[in-house]
């Protein structure tokens, strides 16, 4: 029948009609009447399968149609019929609004009629049980109505068009997934990532679960930093206000082996966390080298490869190191600077350097590039040229422990301010010695503790955990350090903790 939509309901006739009424009312429309033809027939002594009509609508919806063409009033309010056919199926039928509009030649209200049509379809589908399983209302009931062209399902897609659309969907999803995989480094297995950097440390020193992947061997210390207020001219960080703030730190030797024997030439590290009272933190990880031997993460990675011990000789291959230095002349120059600086005898009289440049911002908003150092109160004594192969594998740490137990160890915190021409993105180059240096306060170390018992074991001395008033420079090493430290931290925190080389008992024995 033209303009007459019928859909199948999944409920019985009475339930379908009840649901239809509820769906109509839930949309704020009025139900004017429900006329049950079947029960009227019974009363008249006649027989009719369930057949019930509902009359409903809303003046706000219908009036514009009648304003356009009054005669459409004969077909309003709207009606819907619920009926059971001879096979026992419950069906729901209604006039298509478009057909009503055509019948009365209503012009220029296409949008209204379209909306009306959709609303009716939605109401009908809701009443018909929404659609259990595959049998959606439109799919079932539409054979008749589609022929009449009254409902508005879009034209069927040709097979080609359907396939093209399916391919397009698959392509969009695959492209987004591929972009995600690319961003995560899965599609570029040769690119340098924090994980691959950390793998390299593990390859060089063997895997030592629970320990830092570099600077694995160490002891923890605590004390305080007494700021003299001079730093406030450079940075608004609260740590530089005059006052005394607690610090926790860790002295370490470079390398991934937590049980290596102490040796004077091994690079010494000092990680510190400053905790001013406002909840901000400053962490720094310094070493006793004047400059960093690599300008970029890639160069540092290649240096690790070049200095790896040869499996046969157990010593680095000099040819590989030569090739590395030829490729990275700035590293050769930096190593020359490092080697020309005399090494001190122990941790307690070492100067520690930030290596990388940072930016300080003061209260006026002025930014300066800086590097910093800790210079020891202890007098310099050179490392003895040939340490007789001492039986004490922890001789450097033991000397440090004995010193701290004897008296607190102190360092000046010296900020060096760059001149405009000094490089901030190249930690291989020392800044000239005549640069302005400001002593901003004194670091005092009062206690020493084993890695096994100190919270400092579980602190990542990420050099980019900076308070407001300090910021990273453009040095590419800084972000890489932050990334690789974080990777190492994540790996070790989930691992079983093994006792460290410098045990609590050993520390107590030096009291």
């Amino acid at each position, binding site marked *: 029948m033209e303009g007459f939509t019928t859909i199948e309901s999944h409920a019985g006739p009475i339930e379908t009609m009840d649901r239809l009424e509820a769906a109509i009312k839930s949309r704020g429309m009025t139900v004017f009447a429900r006329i049950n033809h079947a029960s009227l027939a019974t009363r008249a002594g006649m027989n009719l399968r369930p057949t019930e009509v509902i009359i409903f609508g809303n003046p706000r919806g219908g009036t514009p149609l009648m304003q356009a063409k009054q005669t459409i009033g004969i077909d309003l309010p709207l009606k819907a019929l619920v009926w059971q056919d001879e096979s026992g199926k419950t069906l729901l039928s209604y006039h298509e609004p478009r057909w009503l509009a055509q019948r009365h030649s209503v012009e220029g209200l296409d949008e209204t009629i379209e909306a009306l049509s959709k609303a009716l379809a939605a109401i009908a589908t809701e009443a018909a049980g*929404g659609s259990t399983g595959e049998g959606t209302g439109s799919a079932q009931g539409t054979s008749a109505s589609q022929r009449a062209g009254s409902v508005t399902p879009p034209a069927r897609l040709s097979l080609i068009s359907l396939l093209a659309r399916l391919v397009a*969907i698959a392509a969009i*999803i695959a492209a987004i997934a591929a972009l995600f995989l690319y961003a995560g480094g899965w599609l570029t297995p040769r690119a340098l990532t924090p994980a691959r950097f950390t793998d390299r440390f593990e390859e060089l020193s063997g895997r030592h679960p629970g320990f830092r992947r570099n600077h694995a061997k160490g002891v923890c210390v605590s004390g305080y930093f007494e700021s003299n207020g001079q730093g406030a001219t450079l940075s608004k960080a609260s740590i530089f206000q005059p006052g005394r703030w607690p610090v926790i730190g860790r002295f370490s030797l470079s390398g991934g082996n937590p049980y290596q024997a102490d040796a004077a030439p091994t690079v010494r590290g000092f990680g510190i966390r400053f905790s001013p009272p406002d909840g901000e933190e400053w962490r720094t990880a310094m070493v006793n080298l004047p400059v960093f031997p690599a300008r970029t993460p890639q160069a540092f990675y290649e240096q690790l490869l070049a200095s790896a011990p040869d499996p046969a000789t157990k010593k680095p291959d000099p040819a590989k190191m030569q090739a590395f230095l030829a490729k990275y002349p700035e590293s050769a120059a930096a190593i020359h600077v490092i080697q020309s600086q005399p090494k001190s005898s122990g941790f307690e009289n070492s100067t520690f350097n930030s290596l990388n440049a940072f930016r300080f911002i003061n209260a006026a908003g002025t930014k300066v590039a800086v590097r910093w150092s800790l210079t020891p109160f202890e007098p310099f004594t050179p490392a003895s040229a040939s340490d007789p192969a001492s039986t004490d594998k922890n001789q450097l740490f033991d000397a440090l422990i004995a010193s701290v137990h004897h008296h607190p160890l102190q360092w000046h915190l010296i900020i060096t301010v760059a001149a405009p021409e000094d490089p901030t993105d190249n930690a291989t180059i020392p800044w000239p010695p005549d640069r302005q240096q400001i002593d901003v306060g004194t670091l005092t170390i009062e206690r020493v503790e084993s890695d096994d018992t100190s919270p400092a074991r579980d602190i990542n001395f990420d050099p980019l955990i900076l308070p407001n008033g300090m910021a990273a420079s453009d040095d590419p090493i800084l972000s890489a350090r932050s990334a690789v430290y974080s990777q190492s931290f994540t790996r070790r925190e989930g691992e079983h903790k093994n006792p460290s080389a410098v045990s609590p008992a050993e520390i107590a024995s030096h009291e």
Partner: protein
Amino acid sequence: MSEGSSQFAYLSRILHWLMAAMLLAMLFIGVTMVASLGDYHKLVAIHRPLGIMILILAIIRLINRMFTTLPPFPPTMSQRERRIASASERLLYTLMLALPLVGWGMLSAGHYPIVMFGPVHLPPILPANPLLYAILRRTHTILAYLLFVTFLAHLSAILFHTLIIRDRILHRMALWSFRTRSPNE
């Protein structure tokens, strides 16, 4: 039919698209930064405050969701498809609340300061503990992958409805209004 019943409430639609952009950006920032050396620090500095913003918006969105009526499902969706859509909606809400909370908790457990911007930082919500950190760190990654996969499934379903079934399902979430008038009388 009133406009509210064919489309989501206006605030719901705003929140949907705003958070869609933020969550997608967040997933890509997260996966990029973890594999990045040079941009790691900059990306982390965005990741943390953006995550907290998502948490705040997710709470607003959850409250909004509890107090608004949804438009009915389009008739083209089967009962089973509706159940899947509702379940995936619950999963997405859970993830967009859980991911920032796990991130915040993870930094707390890892002894990290939770820096937002400038001097603004948040307090820890969990005690510092290495194993707790490790578990939350792993959980954060797994939940992020789950969110990405759920997002892809959601997008696939919408594309399928839009390009194959062509039931204008997107109109429900469009930022502009589709003029739908009451079916009259």
